[in-house]
């Protein structure tokens, strides 16, 4: 079937990527299917659950509610991009393990993205602020308390929040 295609160029986890894709391809499907970065998860696909959360130019967004073409010229960070440069888990990721902040793991990438962004803006959030910042991410397993504990533990450890703001973005394509 011939459907409209577009060329997109963007920075993903610090590396420039360029692909030709169906114009209607969502950002989450682009990340998962085209780039094979399957850490970002598809849950509700209509903007409620937060499993698809990624950082766009450093801010959490729902990747299911963006088309990949909209990210052309921008920088995306997925959960794969949160680890340390040597591949070891960040303080935040390790804290999630420590507090049992996940069970099935489906919501976890989205929780990490939202938590990472929170700590970058507010390194010592209160429990209420954590719950507020994570309100766009649903979890069916944990009941949320261990997730809040994880973020608090990470904050107490001075979770290093290397800026995810990208170097100068790629030239904007059409």
């Amino acid at each position, binding site marked *: 079937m011939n*459907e*409209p295609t*577009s060329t997109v160029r963007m920075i993903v986890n610090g590396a420039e990527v360029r692909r030709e894709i*169906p*114009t*209607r391809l*969502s950002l989450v*499907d682009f990340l998962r299917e085209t780039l094979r970065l399957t850490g970002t998860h598809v849950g509700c*696909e*209509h*903007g409620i659950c*937060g499993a698809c*959360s990624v950082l*766009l130019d450093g*801010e*959490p*967004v*729902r990747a*299911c*509610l*963006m*088309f990949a*073409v*909209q990210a*052309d*010229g921008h920088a995306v960070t997925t959960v794969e991009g949160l680890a340390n440069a040597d591949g070891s888990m960040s303080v935040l990721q390790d804290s999630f393990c420590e507090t049992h902040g996940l069970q099935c793991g489906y919501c976890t990438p989205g929780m990490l993205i*939202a938590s990472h*962004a*929170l700590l970058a*803006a*507010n390194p010592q*959030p209160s429990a*209420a*602020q*954590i719950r*507020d*910042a994570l*309100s*766009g*991410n649903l979890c069916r397993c944990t009941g949320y308390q261990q997730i809040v504990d994880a973020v608090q533990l990470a904050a107490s450890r001075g979770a290093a929040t290397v800026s995810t703001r990208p170097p100068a973005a790629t030239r*904007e394509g*059409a």
Partner: protein
Amino acid sequence: MKAATFEYTRADSVAHACSLLTEHGADAKLLAGGQSLVPMMAMRLARPAWLINVNEIAELKISHQQGETWVTGAGLRQADVERDDRVAKAIPLIRQGLYWVGHVQTKNRGTVGGSLVHADPSAELPLVAQALGARFVLRSVTGERTVAAQDFFIAPMITATEADECLAEVHWPVWRGERLGSAFDEVSIRHGDYAIVAACAQVELDRAGRCVRAVLAIGGAGSTPIAIDPVARALQGTMLDDSTIDAAVHDVGVHLEPASDVHATAAYRIHLARVLAARVLRQARVAAAAPTFNSAPRSVGR
């Protein structure tokens, strides 16, 4: 849950977006934050043949005072507006209303204009716009026109925006006075959901604590957000004490057209409207009586 096919253009100016709207007519939709449109496309409730991306247009992201109004470009992200202390000082109801809107992710993409044009009768920004009498600047290839809030919101999801028009700016009236206070409150099933009923109020007091002027509006209890002018007028000249407020809002229901749905009956919505109207008027009075203009925004965690 995948969108149907569409053609796509990134508009580089409002004029460009308008010419595309004119060229493609009813087959085209503007894509701003996408937080309402893209889920509809995913569920195939909307199938525009052309999507016009307006997210990269700088002239839609202005935010500054102009005379007695604060001008916001329609393309401003709700999160950016919520964080902007200048806006919070000029139009505190915007930050107070945005506290109740969605979640971090939706506010990072959702735009001021998008929410207003989407015109959900339970949405917070339309309610603030209605309460304050904001004015909407609509552009098309034939020029520009300005529509007052009461004429802009027509029915659920329907505004005065024509198919070939792009909302470019919203002008919010800035109040000046020594004793100003405002408040926004709502009841919803979960924090961040659309309101079942929402209410907002802004008041100005004189030095004696007497109400010089007030506005009150209710959302979620009609086909649009509703400014309750008779109640606001009745409060002018009073001391805005609790019993006066309670008496003034007692019959607020006659100004509303609530529907019954799966979330709430019409009767419950009227009850909520009465309770929330009284609450926001009291809170606005308390804020106005404080030494400085204090809109007491809640923590937004960032």
